[in-house]
């Protein structure tokens, strides 16, 4: 429980592997899922996940948006980052306080967005590797 855990959800294996590396390079711990069902199963099992970084279109449906809705309902404090090769969804479809990253994304973009989200609402426990970024503040939500 030293690093905040980010759940990466992506159906394309190569993109998933690379996204996991981006998240780890940003100083987080990554776990990954290849679809929304697996993601929900992981969220039910682990209580240390503080951000979900998910593709919107998985298996030809907008499963990522449904997943985001479930996360907002059941685990409201979790940070949500959604990505897609298509344009950002309408505000009505988009989860509150969620962030959108267009595909193809760069590691820099993912890192920036993760840092911004955790800077505004840090994970509620102390982080071990925290070189000056100070996510370790105890959350007050």
């Amino acid at each position, binding site marked *: 429980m030293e690093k905040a855990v980010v759940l990466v959800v992506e159906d*394309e294996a*190569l993109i998933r592997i*690379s*996204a996991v590396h981006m998240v780890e390079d940003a100083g987080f711990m990554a776990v990954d899922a290849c679809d929304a069902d697996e993601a929900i199963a992981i969220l039910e099992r682990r209580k240390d996940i503080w951000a979900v970084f998910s593709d919107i279109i998985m298996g030809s449906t907008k499963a990522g948006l449904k997943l985001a809705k479930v996360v907002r309902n059941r685990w409201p404090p979790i940070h949500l980052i959604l990505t897609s090769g298509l344009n950002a969804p309408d505000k009505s479809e988009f989860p509150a306080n969620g962030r959108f990253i267009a595909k193809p994304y760069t590691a820099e973009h993912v890192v920036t967005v993760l840092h911004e989200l955790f800077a505004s609402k840090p994970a509620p426990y102390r982080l071990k590797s925290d070189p000056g970024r100070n996510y370790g503040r105890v959350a007050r939500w």
Partner: protein
Amino acid sequence: MAPQQKQNMSPDIELNLALAVVASSAAPLLLLDGDLTLVAVSDSFCRAFEIDPGSVPGRSLRELGSGEWNIPQLHSMMKATASGFAKIEGYEIDLRRDGKEPRRLVLNAQKLSYGNEGSVRLLLSIADVTEARIAEKLKDEMLKEKAILLQELQHRVANSLQIIASVLMQSARNVQSEETRTHLVDAHQRVMSVAALQKHLATSKPGDVELRPYFTALCDSIGASMIRDHNQLSLDVTVDDSVTSADVSVSLGLIVTELVINALKHAFPADRSGGRIKVGYQSKGADWKLSVTDNGVGMSAGAPAAKPGLGTGIIEALTRQLGALVEVGDAKPGTAVSIVHTGIAQIANPVRSRAAV
């Protein structure tokens, strides 16, 4: 002549003429009296709705065929038309017959004024729009399907570019050689530049790329991945309202990518603070100028020119393809590289420039 002939016409002949006009109408047409009894129907009506012409005279609209025309709304509207209260214009009904698909009909009816106030005559015309409506629906569905396919394609292209970019970045993480790593990072940036364009094209009208937002998005993308400290080095875009074709914009975007990568690599070897790279584009008629200017160390002061790399090759090939020329100047301090196109250059060697690429 004509008026005289008319004068000679007996009322019977006039009536026959009217009936013959109705009968020969190419569009289904019914002539009725005030009680909705049929006076005449067109052959086209009988053919279209399978009515025996011999059975028509003297029947009421209700009794026509096997009673399929006994439609209460139609009757009340026809009655209202007969009494002059209403006029049927573009009224749509479904004609239902046993053992047949319903037909969608558009009706128009009006009371005829012909100088005989005693006897009312109504003219009802019928257009069968069933097929037209099916075709419209099909067209809507096809348009929807096309939009879905386009989205699917856009999704796949973005995913593919993401895979390529990801693999290049993974490779860059894993190689030992700094030189190889630089090449892989550059390749990654080239892929991201193509992606920025692809994204821009997906949202713009076909054949119509606005350069300012495109170059801005492109430079944002380059800046995001290649400039670590934005306080030290700035990348600015100054572009006029120029619009180009998609083909030309791809070439211009790739040239900008190479020139900016080049400036980032060579213009500020020691210290980037205060560093500035400007991307400019201006056009007038067929003449245009694309420029990338830095305030770095300049060509002579920089590292001794290595043998021209991939970037230089890309710039030269694309510039030739555009029928333009590369001009390198001293920006005092720094370097200004311009890609200049004049209308004359384009006319002078369009064939050669294409053949060279």
